[in-house]
């Protein structure tokens, strides 16, 4: 339990997750979200999964967070800073969060996984590559088609058609 690297990563990850939801500016919020995603990549490194960690860094921190940042910049300036929520709903949300955390945490602490440690060697990433090519290749093809379809769908959705009321400034 007293692993300083683990404790530091937990504080960074959970703190920046809270910051991503609670910071007033959406731009700083998305930068804090980058901190959360990078912290998760650090956890993957701690879990001896460097391949997944680098994939996480490349896909999440490298592309998704930057995509979100650019979308935030497309939104009007006063909407970025406006906070729309009411107090009672917020209290109910905090209660819900506490209920989820306490109940699930109690389940985990009470179950048999407490105290499990391992001294077996970690999974080699070559094994993951072999899994991908040998067992999961239909799923890989399906995933590629889903990604292509989603990108095409996103482009079709975001295509601009209303040129008559857009004006010259855009």
């Amino acid at each position: 339990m007293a692993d300083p690297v683990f404790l530091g990563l937990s504080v960074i990850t959970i703190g920046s997750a809270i910051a991503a939801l609670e910071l007033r500016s959406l731009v700083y919020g998305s930068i804090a979200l980058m901190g959360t995603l990078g912290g998760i990549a650090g956890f993957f490194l701690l879990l001896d999964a460097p391949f997944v960690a680098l994939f996480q860094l490349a896909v999440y921190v490298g592309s998704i967070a930057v995509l979100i940042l650019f979308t935030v910049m497309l939104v009007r300036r006063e909407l970025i800073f406006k906070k729309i929520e009411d107090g009672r709903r917020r209290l109910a949300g905090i209660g819900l969060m506490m209920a989820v955390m306490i109940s699930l945490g109690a389940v985990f602490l009470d179950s048999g996984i407490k105290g499990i440690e391992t001294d077996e060697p970690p999974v080699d990433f070559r094994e993951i590559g072999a899994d991908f090519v040998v067992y999961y290749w239909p799923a890989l093809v399906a995933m590629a088609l889903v990604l292509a379809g989603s990108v095409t769908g996103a482009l079709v959705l975001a295509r601009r058609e209303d040129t008559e009321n857009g004006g010259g400034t855009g």
Partner: protein
Amino acid sequence: MAAELVDFALVSVALLGIGIYGLAVKRNFIRMLFAVEIVINAANLNLVAFARFIPDSGGQTLALFSIAIAAAEVAVGLSLIIVAYRMYQNVDVADFRSLRG
């Protein structure tokens, strides 16, 4: 390998709770997308942690698939945000009253 399995599971539960809080309270579409991302990452952390302690390569493979599908989901979600912002000039989900294109 100093940390135990239950530590990773507890971090994952904390992230899940924060994500549920965000989904329940926030009305800004972009913030809700942040909360969805946090929940997905909690699930991935659980997958990789349990796969490390079994140990088995299947968990990491599933986590890689999950990350790729989440990328697709974010692309579609962001384009929906752009469409909704163009229609309503707002990102408040309470203002999105019509599904008409």
